[in-house]
């Protein structure tokens, strides 16, 4: 029973949240349109959380992702204002993400600074750089190319429903592609298995011939680029960029990974579990908004759900140990 709860308790919890909203909102919750909406709303968080999973697999984490998302959006927007073509500006922003991620990797793996300290410092630097690059202003309006802003509103036409066209959102497709890529890397390559080995026991992995330093360094490139991609998605969605807009992604992404860890068999972070965590958080936001629950009450509830899930998982683990 304990092991059943340990393995399925959180999944059942997640399913019951969905079921609850389905019953409370019979007409509007369990509809294709609403779920496409939710998927689009969560697309940025999915990209950050899924790439965050890569470093959390090794027991590390990256606090700088939110600031990097803000920075990448601002960098692209400033390049737009310089009249550069969209692909060049996007490449510039992604390059900033890659460099930032590698910088984190160097600090954590080569210099051996604790991830908390190293990425807290780079968080501050990226955030300061975003203010510097943008001059502290929101860049919007004619400075943002129409094509870039339209991306977030585009999608694959799925037909019409209730006389209105239904689109499979482009942001969702992009998030799904990133998720698939990271899932392949973590679950189906030697590289991914070695990252899990480092997370299990770094010293043992090193003795077994795994190049821990190089792998740890490279893994941070995922969070950097992932954050940059999410920042560009955010900028496209709001058709503007300001130096703080992505900051909120970091804590929610870490929360989603932790929430996801409660559904995995081995208690390790896994990509699909992270996605389940993100979806749970997103469903709470969507459903509680539709139920007109006060936004502060909503925040408290979301925090409480995370605690409940993690507690169930911890209790389950203890029960197994005590058996």
């Amino acid at each position: 029973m304990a092991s059943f709860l340990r393995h399925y308790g959180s999944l059942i919890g997640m399913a019951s949240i969905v079921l609850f909203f389905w019953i409370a909102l019979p007409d509007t919750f369990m509809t294709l349109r609403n779920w496409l909406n939710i998927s689009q709303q969560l697309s940025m968080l999915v990209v950050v959380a899924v790439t965050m999973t890569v470093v959390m697999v090794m027991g590390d984490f990256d606090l700088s992702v939110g600031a990097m998302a803000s920075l990448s959006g601002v960098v692209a927007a400033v390049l737009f204002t310089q009249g550069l073509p969209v692909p060049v500006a996007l490449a510039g922003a992604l390059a900033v993400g890659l460099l930032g991620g590698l910088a984190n990797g160097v600090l954590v793996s080569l210099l051996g600074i604790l991830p908390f300290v190293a990425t807290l410092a780079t968080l501050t630097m990226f955030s300061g750089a975003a203010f510097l690059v943008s001059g502290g202003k929101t860049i919007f309006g004619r400075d943002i190319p129409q094509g870039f802003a339209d991306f977030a509103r585009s999608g694959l036409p799925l037909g019409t429903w209730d006389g209105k066209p239904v689109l499979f959102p482009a942001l969702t497709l992009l998030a799904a592609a990133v998720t698939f890529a990271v899932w392949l890397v973590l679950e189906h390559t030697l590289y991914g298995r070695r990252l899990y080995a480092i997370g299990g026991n770094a010293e043992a992995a090193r003795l077994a011939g795994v190049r821990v330093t190089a792998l740890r360094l490279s893994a941070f490139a995922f969070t950097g680029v992932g954050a940059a991609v999410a920042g560009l998605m955010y900028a496209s969605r709001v058709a503007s960029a300001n130096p703080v807009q992505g900051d909120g992604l970091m804590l929610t992404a870490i929360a989603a990974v932790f929430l996801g860890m409660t559904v995995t068999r081995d208690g390790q972070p896994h990509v699909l579990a992270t996605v389940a965590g993100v979806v749970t958080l997103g469903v709470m936001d969507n459903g509680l908004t539709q139920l007109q629950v006060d936004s502060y009450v909503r925040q408290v509830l979301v925090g409480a759900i995370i605690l409940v899930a993690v507690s169930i998982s911890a209790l389950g683990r203890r029960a197994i140990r005590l058996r």
Partner: protein
Amino acid sequence: MTGLTRRDIGRRIAGLTLATGLATLGTAAFAAGEKVAVVTPYLSQPGTQFYVEAFQARAKELGWEVNVIDTAGDVAAVISRMEDLATQGVDAIVLNVDPAQVGAGLDAAAAAGIPVFGMDAGTDPRIKANVTSNGYAMAAETAVYVANRIGGAGNVVMFVFDAFPPVQVRGAIADAVFANHPDITVLDRVTPDVSDGGIADSRAKMEAILAANPEPGSIKAVWAAWDQPALGALQAIEAAGRQGEGIVITGIDANPQAREAVATGGNFEATVAQDFAGIGATTADTVARVLAGETLKSNVIYVPTRLITSANAQE
């Protein structure tokens, strides 16, 4: 598989309690009345709180069910919540964010046939009406105050910020008022660096202008498009020991620091207060008009502002 332990039962009870709690919250929301949602990323800012409280008070009289959603600075979340509200089918959405940044949310509301209103938000074809203060009128109040105080003659220093549209219109009006007085000369039209809040750089710029114009009476007035440069200019004049020359300073916005300076009766003589509570209440009235079937002629509705001088600064 072990049997059902006490811990398992505890867990089940905890789960049930949570579900019941959520259900209670849910049913509480299914009361009667028009459902109106206010979405803002800026609820923690003082001005926004005044709007929202006044809006809620008026909405209560109208018997509405108001849901205030604060996304804590997250603009993309404003779009997400607007999409949720469109799905839920509320009767109206009130925004307090630049509509240019939430176009996708406006599209979702339009597709669902839900009218959207701006509470000091900005104009957009998809917004029925934006209720705000008239920047042109506020600038006219202080520019005319300056022109009258100096008898329509003398040198004036202007602090402007043309890069930000709402502030740009203020400068344009002051330009027109001063140009209409042939004996007023605009000595300098300064754009301060606002990255530090605007006071320090305005002070530095004003110190340089004072140094370049050492004769008493060579500067009659400082007209600032908002309060921070006015406060910086005041500091510069006081630091230079020239507060006795009767240089008239005006600002706009009536922030607490500016109100205090005006109340002391020194050089900083006037600023303009927006009626935040009035904006909130008028927004509710505007929503009511549209819900009652009225078609609004203008998509901007102005709420009168008030000139603040030493006579009324402490109110």
